[in-house]
């Protein structure tokens, strides 16, 4: 059944009603154009953002994330539903266009969709309309009856918009019914006049309608055909013009949002695009203070959010009841844009965002773990926005008192504790290290640098990771040294907390110290440091995390493990955000664990790219947002649910947070945390058994024979 085969007996009105249809078209298109133009006003006033390079990579993203709906199946039910609706829409887009154009010229046929191809196309769209219709029914029932948790709006974020969602879903269902009715009435008329063979598409919506209409009079069919057509026109244009006012705007904007998505996601947005670090002193105001300080792409993100709640469902901050929830962070941004850039009145701008739509605590609550960005099917960016808002807060001097001290200490001493530089290498003194560690600040010459970073250098508990790392490197035969008092904090979290200038000072100091040492290779035991060297520093030698060094040593045979002695310990690996999600190092740590003979390992439900943050590293150690329950406590419970009693992690912050969480959760003696480096160090088969026992206590019931 082809769209352009018309039956004059019942479609005569197409001719007579041409003026009406043309008017609807003209009004609909004009209204949509006006709305889009108004929506573009803030984007024109926004900060610039270079997103026009690398068209091929961008097209690849489009193929994968837009057309391929790559992220959707991460949520099975909703994902499959969306893929069905999306494919239906893609198929129906051409048909909707044809149907609309029939109103202008009644024998219009889409070029390329005539003859046999046209028939196949028609049949597939009949089914597409049916599938979309059924999906809508299913989605409405799902909203009404099952109402999944992630769609709900906690009271602190305002009212739920279930009504709006159901209204939009119903409208699409109406569109599908109208379209099918129009086709079915025509087809039924054709059967009666023997002008056509009717539908091939058995069990489709038009097919069902056609059966129902078979015996109707020509007059009735004419009226139904007209009604279907008019309803289709009105519903189509209403939806087109209504979508830019809510969550369905993504139907239009997603294509652009995904095309213009950030390609180098791990590299933090510069303070201003197009301003180099050398010229940064000339930038008057840092960061985002008013809505117009966002870049146009960040505003497009706000428009594009479909309010699906996947970000928040995975966000540690939201889950722990902190004031930040990525979903509402975005919808608040969108509401601001809609309110301050209205359709008819003059645009008002320049209001401070902090204190009006966002709170300071909300902005400081983010751990930058990246779970939201990993999940978002529309590739909305969050971390850059949060960091930009923090830059604005820092620029205005609005930094929580608890963060001011560590920041000032980082400025004067190069570490957040305010400890003296000369004590930075004190962890390496003492009997626990059989061979002394080379000090590159005194005598350069080693090939490899172990960059220890601040917390691992100074925190009593974490120093054991430093010593374990040094012993592993010694066992692996690496020619390595440390920078000692010449090392400063890598600045990784200084940058992510918005203190860009301090970060630049720390980075420049470290980069020149590293260059002066002449090393060819950097190793670190801290994923934050690893991320800094990979993405924040330039012109420094390549960096490896200790888990990668271990995996390399095991593969080459330079390192071997002896079997675990404890029989009851069940290990699980907690992916640190900056090793896993931000840098894709998932397999090496697991490979290392699995290389230990006799080690029993289970996976937590949330692992790899869905790993759940420990509560936040870096400066988050010094900031305690309001929360219902510690993030780390939730994580420890997840390990417990997985049946593990030892959590292995590969980050000093994860270890500290989880260790604290075990105490808070009252699981002392039942659960333990150990760093991968510490565990590997214990298990490396050596001749001299001069290994320190860490302060970490493997639970008694699993420490049999230890």
């Amino acid at each position, binding site marked *: 059944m082809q769209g352009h085969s018309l039956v004059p007996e019942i479609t005569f009105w197409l001719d007579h009603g041409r003026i009406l249809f043309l008017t609807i078209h003209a009004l609909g298109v004009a209204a949509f154009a006006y709305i889009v133009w108004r929506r573009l006003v803030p984007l024109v006033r926004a900060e610039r953002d270079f997103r026009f390079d690398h068209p091929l990579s961008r097209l690849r993203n489009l193929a994968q994330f837009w057309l391929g709906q790559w992220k959707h199946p991460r949520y099975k039910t909703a994902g499959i539903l969306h893929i069905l609706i999306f494919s239906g829409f893609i198929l129906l887009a051409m048909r909707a266009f044809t149907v609309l154009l029939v109103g202008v010229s009644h024998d219009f046929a889409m070029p390329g969709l005539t003859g046999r191809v046209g028939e196949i196309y028609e049949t597939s769209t009949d089914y597409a309309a049916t599938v979309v219709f059924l999906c809508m029914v299913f989605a409405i029932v799902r909203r009404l009856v099952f109402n999944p948790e992630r769609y709900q709006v906690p009271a602190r974020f305002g009212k739920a918009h279930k009504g709006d969602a159901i209204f939009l879903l119903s409208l699409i269902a109406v569109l599908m019914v109208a379209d099918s009715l129009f086709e079915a009435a025509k087809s039924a008329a054709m059967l009666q006049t023997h002008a056509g063979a009717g539908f091939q598409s058995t069990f489709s919506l038009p097919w069902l309608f056609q059966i129902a209409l078979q015996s109707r009079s020509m007059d009735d069919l004419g009226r139904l055909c007209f009604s279907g057509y008019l309803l289709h026109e009105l519903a189509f244009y209403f939806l087109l013009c209504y979508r830019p006012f809510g969550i369905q705007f993504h139907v239009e904007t997603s294509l652009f949002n995904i095309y213009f998505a950030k390609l180098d996601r791990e590299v933090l947005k510069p303070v201003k695009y197009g301003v180099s670090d050398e010229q940064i*002193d000339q930038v008057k105001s*840092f960061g985002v203070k008013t809505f117009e300080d966002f870049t146009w792409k960040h505003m497009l993100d706000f428009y594009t959010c479909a309010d699906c709640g996947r970000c928040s469902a995975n966000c540690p901050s939201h889950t722990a009841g902190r004031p930040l929830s990525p979903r509402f962070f975005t919808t608040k941004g969108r509401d601001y844009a809609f309110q301050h850039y209205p359709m008819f009145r003059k645009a008002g701008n320049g209001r401070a965002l902090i204190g009006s739509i966002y709170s300071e605590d909300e902005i400081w609550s983010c751990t930058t773990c990246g779970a939201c960005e990993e999940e978002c099917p529309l590739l909305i960016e969050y971390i850059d926005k949060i960091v930009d808002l923090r830059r604005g807060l*820092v*620029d*205005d*001097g*609005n*930094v929580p*008192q608890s*963060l*001011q*001290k560590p*920041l*000032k*200490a980082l*400025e*004067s*001493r190069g570490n957040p504790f*305010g*400890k*003296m530089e*000369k004590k930075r290498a004190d962890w390496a003194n003492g009997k626990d290290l059989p061979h002394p560690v080379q000090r590159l600040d005194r005598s350069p010459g080693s090939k490899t640098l172990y960059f220890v970073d601040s917390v691992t250098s100074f925190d009593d508990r974490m120093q054991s990771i430093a010593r374990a790392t040094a012993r592993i490197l010694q066992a692996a035969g690496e020619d390595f040294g440390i920078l000692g008092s010449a090392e400063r904090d890598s600045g990784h979290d200084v940058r992510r907390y918005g*203190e*860009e*200038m*301090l970060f*630049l*000072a720390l980075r420049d100091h470290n980069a020149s110290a590293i260059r002066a040492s002449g090393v060819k290779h950097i190793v670190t035991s801290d994923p934050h440091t690893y991320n800094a060297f990979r993405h924040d520093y330039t012109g420094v030698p390549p960096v490896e995390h200790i888990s990668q060094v271990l995996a390399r040593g095991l593969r080459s045979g330079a390192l071997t493990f002896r079997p675990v002695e404890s029989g009851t310990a069940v290990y699980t690996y907690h992916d640190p955000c900056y090793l896993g999600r931000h840098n894709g190092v998932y397999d090496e740590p697991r490979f290392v664990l699995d290389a230990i003979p006799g080690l029993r390992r289970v996976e937590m439900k949330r692992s790899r790219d869905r790993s759940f943050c420990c509560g936040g590293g870096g400066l988050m150690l010094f900031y305690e947002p309001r929360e219902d329950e510690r993030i780390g406590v939730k994580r420890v419970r997840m390990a417990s649910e997985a049946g593990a009693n030892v959590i292995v992690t590969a980050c000093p912050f994860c270890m500290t947070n989880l260790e604290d969480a075990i105490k808070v959760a009252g699981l002392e003696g039942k659960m333990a945390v150990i760093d991968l480096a510490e565990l590997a160090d214990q298990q490396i088969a050596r001749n001299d058994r001069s290994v320190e026992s860490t302060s970490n206590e493997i639970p008694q019931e699993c420490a049999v024979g230890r």
Partner: protein
Amino acid sequence: MDILVCVRRVPDTSENDIELNSTGNDIERDDLVYSINEPDNYAVEEALQIVARVGGTVSVVTVGGEDDEEVLRREMAMGASHGILLTDVAFAGSDGRGIALILKTFIQKNRYALILTGVQAEDGGAQVGGMLAALLDYPFASLVTAIEVLDDKKLNVTREIEGGNREISQLDLPCVLSIQTGINEPRYVGMKGIRAVQSLPIPTYSAADLGLKVEEVGAAAAKLKRVDYFVPVLDKTAQMLQGSREANAAEVMELIVAKGGLK
């Protein structure tokens, strides 16, 4: 309202391991990190907030050497519009009265409606504010926790009295106030702000510029002399509780009550 805040540079207690020098009359000053006297930050923040409400300027002044410019710049990065350094070899070793006299001479040559100091210097004795007011014959209030500007002649200040009560007093301007910490939340001073004021001029005044007699200030004129400096020996009064969590909690409560921590 033109406000002058007297500030000072001190060894940062949170970022140093304070150790005695070999002669035992001072601390080991190599490797020390100096920074703004923390209580002075509250005074500067309060001055900035007053000016934001009623208009005017905020100036910061310190007595010291070239190194002390650093703290003036930090306060200028916070928002103070002028920094003034009072420096002279003759000033070295001044006691609290000497510092107050130097400041008084400078203030008499200028017109400030309000003079603020921090509640005390971290390495000092909370002397200068009171003495400065006396030397200037200005009204003085110490430990101020709130300031309300009534008009360009009068202020109301709130002070916290031991036990948590509050007292409100009225003062005529010009006056001297010492500002209690906790009156506000001092704003953060970032690297960007410090770099932005790096090249602003800071005028300096010597004893001669101020018309000060050299013999009235400095170590020789000091009426207070330090005779000893020591780090107290750590006493072993810490008690480790070894029982179960519940038993420990109960015992801690008992101890707190016994020592008068809870009534």
